[in-house]
């Protein structure tokens, strides 16, 4: 009997290694297919580009790809603006579901003569570093990660500053003096959101209570794709008396909105990255979204392309903060218009340097 179980275990190990190997192949195949799907945008663009010079901009999406109504779409908006205003020829590629072919996408773009190439998402860090070394005459930009090569520009955001404003808004709007924060993955990036939110709320109301919960530990990115878990975590916060919960949890935010809607009148959620009151199409959910902490990836991408055209070279980071309108709060629904003056005041204090927002909780 033990032999059978042993055999089974061996099968398991074999299965895992086969799985890993086969996934790589499948991923490569998927990359090809998504490429052909999205390159339909190119022909029209190339016509324009041939007239206005040879600015060819490639963009590789984060897992989720185009149409995620958030991060990636925002990056694409910046790319489209570059196409319109700068006459750039553009091309975008989406990685496979597990994101294993990121390096492949970058090489594909570089081989096709695209320069600069924008990689969306911190998950590209290792691949950009490697590929940038192979193509030293191509300029790369990576969103949400620091520069890691002489021809790489890091496009960073001061998420903590935007989150600080979200914290101020939540503290001013809360009737129970109790807030919540749901983070998708306990990574340094998401901790910046928490740190800013905590600082903003505490600065506004020192005795405010804030519950924080991360869905998965660092490295396990399923926390961005687990709405059911986001719902459980937020449900608990609302049950304990919190009336506003801020999320930085990607797709898991859907669960936070559901929990807010189910908790009844006077319970709110704060969205993230995009203006989620607009992008969440479900009426029941979008009406509980008080505001969203915007991350203007579109501005960052456009400004980078513009700077590249002006001759800027990589090797350094550009931080998009409140001053440069890189982050901010959405006003859809007019839920925070009554406290706008106080938010502006906080914003001015951060811009002038009177308040320094911590980036670690």
């Amino acid at each position, binding site marked *: 009997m033990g032999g059978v179980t042993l055999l089974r275990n061996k099968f398991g190990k074999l299965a895992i290694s086969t*799985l890993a190997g086969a996934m790589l192949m499948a991923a490569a195949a998927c990359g090809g297919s998504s490429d052909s799907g999205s390159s339909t945008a190119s022909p029209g663009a190339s016509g324009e580009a041939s007239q206005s010079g040879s600015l060819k901009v490639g963009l590789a999406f984060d897992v989720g790809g185009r149409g995620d109504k958030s991060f990636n779409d925002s990056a694409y908006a910046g790319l489209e603006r570059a196409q319109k205003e700068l006459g750039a020829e553009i091309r975008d590629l989406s990685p496979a579901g597990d994101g294993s072919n990121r390096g492949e996408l970058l090489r594909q773009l570089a081989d096709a003569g695209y320069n600069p190439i924008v990689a969306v998402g911190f998950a590209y860090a290792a691949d950009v570093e490697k590929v940038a070394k192979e193509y030293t005459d191509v300029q790369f930009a990576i969103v949400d990660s620091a520069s890691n090569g002489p021809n790489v520009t890091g496009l960073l955001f001061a998420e903590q500053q935007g989150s600080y404003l979200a914290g101020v808004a939540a503290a001013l709007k809360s009737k129970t003096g109790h807030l919540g924060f749901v983070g998708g993955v306990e990574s340094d990036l998401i901790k910046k959101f928490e740190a800013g939110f905590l600082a903003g709320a505490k600065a506004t109301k020192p005795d405010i209570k804030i519950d924080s919960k991360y869905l998965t530990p660092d490295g396990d990115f399923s926390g961005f794709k687990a709405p059911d878990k986001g719902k459980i975590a937020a449900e608990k916060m609302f049950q304990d008396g919190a009336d506003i919960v801020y999320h930085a949890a990607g797709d898991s935010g859907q669960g936070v909105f559901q929990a807010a809607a189910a908790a009844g009148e006077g319970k709110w959620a704060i969205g993230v990255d995009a203006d989620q009151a607009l992008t969440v199409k479900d009426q029941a959910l979008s009406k509980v979204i008080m505001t969203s902490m915007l991350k203007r990836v579109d501005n960052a991408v456009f400004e980078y392309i513009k700077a590249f055209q002006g001759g800027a070279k990589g090797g350094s980071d550009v931080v998009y903060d409140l001053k440069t309108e890189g982050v901010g709060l959405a006003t859809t629904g007019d839920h925070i218009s009554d406290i706008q003056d106080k938010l502006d005041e906080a914003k001015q204090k951060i811009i002038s340097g009177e308040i320094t927002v911590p980036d670690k909780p």
Partner: protein
Amino acid sequence: MSVQTVSEGTAEARRVRRYHLVLIGVALLIVALSLVRVLADATDLTSSGTFRAALGLAIPIGLAGLGGLWAERAGVVNIGLEGMMVLGTWFAGWAGYQWGPLAALVAGLLGGALGGLLHAVATVTFGVDHIISGVAINLLGPGITRFLSEVLYREGTAASEAGAGITTSPTLAEVPTVSVPLLSSGQDWLGDLESTHWFLLSDVAGMLRGLTRDVNVLAILAVALIPLTYYVLWHTAFGLRLRSCGENPWAAESLGVNVYRTKYIATVISGAFAGLGGVFLVFVTQKYVEGQTSGRGFIGLAAMIFGNWRPGGLAAGASLFGYADGLQLRSSQAVTGLFLFGALLLLGYAIMQARKAATAANRTAGTYTAVAFAALGAVALLWLWLTVDTLPNEFVFITPHVLTLLVLSVASQRLRMPKADGVRYRRGEQH
């Protein structure tokens, strides 16, 4: 003749005794849990919210495990459950946003069953190694669904207007939920009882309320599938034939069972159940999100092995995992309470072993070592509970895995898989 009846009688008696033992064990666990809840002041250990979360987290795992059970009892190893579950989620999302929850249910079932059918064609008809085929389906599931999303949900389509993206479907209509009147809705007697925080009474009320308030109709169906599976597999002629294919297909063949057909049916049902697990995930989220299964198919398979290839056992395994996961998501402070709970359990075990050692026949070195280790463990856990104020997040996250591993390591000594599980069967080739 008389000998036979006597042996049947004792078998019957033994079964009754085991059944009673399980009931007594569950009752004792609840009492211990209530005690810990009071001592550790961790309301969430027995709150309705935790049990509600546990139910929601356990069901997809349990359904995947049930799928695994059907296939493996018929001798087909099914590690493709994850892929079939992914198919279930996608089809449920796609049909659900257009034609409502019922269509989502049917489409998800069919999507999963399709995966099962593929597995059956590969393993039963073509005799492909079960692991290879399962791995292929695990790759195929996410691949196909991604492809379908890119075709049907791409920018500019009607679905995209309705809120779809490459990784998500549009939102589904809400799935009806039911509550038990008076007890958990309306008057909400259980809720009143729970909020009094009396020892035992409030705890039981919390558990019952969590399991009976606003329950998704699919959850009821899923729970009903456990006894139904037990009945079909162990109390019908079809079930006997199915299990005989898993134990010794050649013997089954010699008795006239159509082994190929039976394995086909079992594997397709297996895929359908995994797909149903996917449908449940979509119903909870009200939309399809790529990657939302996040390995639950594999955990379901583990729950089935945990449960010794039995429906009751796998339900227990899924519930344990769901409970621990729900607890860690709600309150890390309550997780620390589990230290005390563990200490209590070990103490009980030590006392039991010590009493056993009191009789001369059992006075062996092994018993004494067991007593010593259990007592030591209890002290260590108690010390941890007293000193650890807030558990580091890293430990909180792994609670469900650690807890399941611990129980498994204690309970897994007598696991027995179906004898011809994973064995390639060819008609007429007696081994």
